[in-house]
C-alpha cells in the first residue's frame, strides 16, 4: 500500500464519562486493523469526548463494523467521516492569547470575532468556566498564527478589554529549535 492511498477517517465519540473508555476504544481500533493519527480526547462537563484521525485500508462500513459494538457497550455516540488528511502537516503557532473575566453571554463570540478581524488564525483553543455558580468566571487560552502581525492583535485586545471589561494578555511564541 502506497502512502497516498491511505484512507483517513475522522472519528468522533461522545458520551457519559466512565473509567476505561480510551482503552476500550483504542483496543477495538487496534484489533480491527486501524491506526491512530492525531487525536484529542478530553472530559467536558462530565462527558468524555474523543476526536481522532483513524487510518484504515478498509471501507467506511468496515470501520462501523469495528466500532459500533464497542461504542454501544460504552454508551458513546459514534460519528465517522472520511476526510482528506495528512500527518506531518503541523503549523506552528506564533502567538498565545489568554482571556479571563466574569462569565457573560457573548464574550467568546465578541473576542474571537475582533481577533479574527485583526488576523488571528486560531490553531488551538480551550476554554473553561470556573468560579462559583453564583459568580462564574470564564477562562480562555488560544494559540494561533498572527497573519497580520502581533501589533494588530495587541490593538484588537485593547478594544475587547475596554468593551468587555475582561483581562486579556498576549505573548509571542518564539519556538527554540535546537
Amino acid at each position, binding site marked *: 500500500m502506497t502512502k497516498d492511498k491511505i484512507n483517513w477517517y475522522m472519528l468522533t465519540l461522545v458520551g457519559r464519562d466512565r473509567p476505561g473508555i480510551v482503552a476500550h476504544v483504542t483496543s477495538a481500533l487496534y484489533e480491527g486493523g486501524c491506526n491512530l493519527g492525531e487525536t484529542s480526547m478530553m472530559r467536558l462537563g462530565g462527558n468524555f469526548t474523543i476526536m481522532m484521525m483513524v487510518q484504515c485500508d478498509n471501507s467506511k462500513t468496515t470501520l462501523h463494523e469495528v466500532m459500533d459494538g464497542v461504542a454501544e457497550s460504552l454508551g458513546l455516540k459514534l460519528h465517522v467521516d472520511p476526510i482528506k488528511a495528512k500527518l506531518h502537516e503541523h503549523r506552528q503557532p506564533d502567538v498565545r492569547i*489568554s482571556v479571563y473575566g466574569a462569565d457573560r453571554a457573548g464574550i467568546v463570540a465578541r473576542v474571537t470575532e475582533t481577533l479574527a478581524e485583526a488576523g488571528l488564525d486560531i490553531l488551538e483553543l480551550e476554554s473553561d468556566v470556573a468560579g462559583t455558580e453564583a459568580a462564574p468566571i470564564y477562562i480562555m487560552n488560544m494559540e494561533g498564527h498572527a497573519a497580520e502581525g502581533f501589533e494588530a492583535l495587541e490593538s484588537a485586545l485593547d478594544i475587547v478589554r475596554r468593551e468587555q471589561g475582561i483581562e486579556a494578555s498576549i*505573548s509571542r511564541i518564539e519556538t527554540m529549535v535546537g
Partner: protein
Amino acid sequence: MALMDILIYPDDRLKQISAPVESFDDGLRAFVADLEETMRVGPGGVGIAAPQVGHFIRVAIVDVSAKKKIRHHGRLVLINPEIEQWEGMVMGREGCMSVPDYTGNVIRAERIQLRAQDEFGQWQAFDMEGYEARAVQHELDHLDGLLFLDRLVSKRHDLFSRKVYKK
C-alpha cells in the same frame, strides 16, 4: 569541513549519557567546526549538541545572535558545561532537530549561571537569561540523554508570560 547526519529519535543513542572531553586538540576543534556547520544549516540553527550527530562527548554549540532584541553572548562553544545556578521558571516553546515535526511547551529556568570550557580548554563563566538560557538548557539535556519530550508540560498548566501583566 563537513556536514554530519543528525540522529533522529527513536534512535536509542540519543538517550545515552555523553562523556567529558579530556583532550583539547586539533581533532576536537575540527569536530567543533563540523558541528557548527551542521547546526547552521539546520532548521533552527541556534543550537546543537554532539550526541545529535552521534558523537557522545560533552560538547554543545549555541548561537542565538540572529534573534532580534534579546540579550546574548554570540557564538558559544560549550565543552564540559555545568549549570551552577538556576533562577526563575518560564514556559516556552521548543522543537528539536532530532524530533522533526513536533513542538511543545517546556518549563526552563529563566536565568542560569553557566561554566564551560572553550575549544582550547579555557574555562569561562556566563550569566544568561531568556531565549539563550533556554537554548543552553535544551542542548545540555542532550548531553545527559534527555530530549525536550521528557519535559513537556500541558498547555492548561500555564506559566506563560507574567511579563505581559505590566500595563
